[in-house]
């Protein structure tokens, strides 16, 4: 599973992109985040308040309860501020 992090999430985690093999239980972004938090302080800090974060699955805005599986690209980022 390909993961991407943007803006302050990228900074807190310390990388913008990684390929991971989460446990099968990580079948939604919420469950994936629970697993990611165990991977280090940067992750725990980045994902401390999930309400401040958006998720995209395969480059489309998604919900934290949507299903995800191994081939998906999952991106986490703060609310956008372009324009």
């Amino acid at each position, binding site marked *: 599973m390909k993961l*991407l992090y*943007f*803006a*302050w999430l*990228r900074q807190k985690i310390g990388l913008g992109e990684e390929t991971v093999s989460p446990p099968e239980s990580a079948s939604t972004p919420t469950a994936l985040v629970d697993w990611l938090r165990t991977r280090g302080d940067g992750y725990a800090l980045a994902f401390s308040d999930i309400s401040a974060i958006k998720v*995209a699955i395969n*480059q*489309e*805005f998604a919900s934290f309860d949507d299903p995800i599986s191994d081939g998906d*690209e999952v*991106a986490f*980022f*703060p*609310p*956008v*501020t*372009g*324009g």
Partner: protein
Amino acid sequence: MAIRVQRPIFDIGVELSDLTADNPRIGGLCCFTGLVRDMNNGDAVATLTLEHYPGMTHKQLAKIEAEANERWALEASLIIHRYGTMLPEEPIVLVAAASAHRHDAFAACQFMMDYLKTDAPFWKVEDTDQGARWVDSRDSDATAKARWRDRES
């Protein structure tokens, strides 16, 4: 219809002239440009840097432009959004809509900007005299987008 995501600065006059060239059906052209300000929340801004999600950005902007073209009778439309580091007074974004009559051009241009502000995956970080900081999203942007849901035009 055209979308461009680019690092270099653009020339508004050239873009608008290209957009309307050889189309005598256009009676009205509305455009909006967002520019880098040298102050934000009371602090001096030296540079503004935009990060984006390349795989998703073009897709989202194309979706916004397509929806504007479905809602209004447009003769031409354009979204250009820059990324990278910019100085105050530089343009960040250009949104334009051309139509036979002014109402469609104004509405489509404002619609595209309102959607872009909440749906296009760009993030701003300011280099200020207080250090670098990520710009917070504004509740008013979500409100501006929501207005379009309940109305036809």
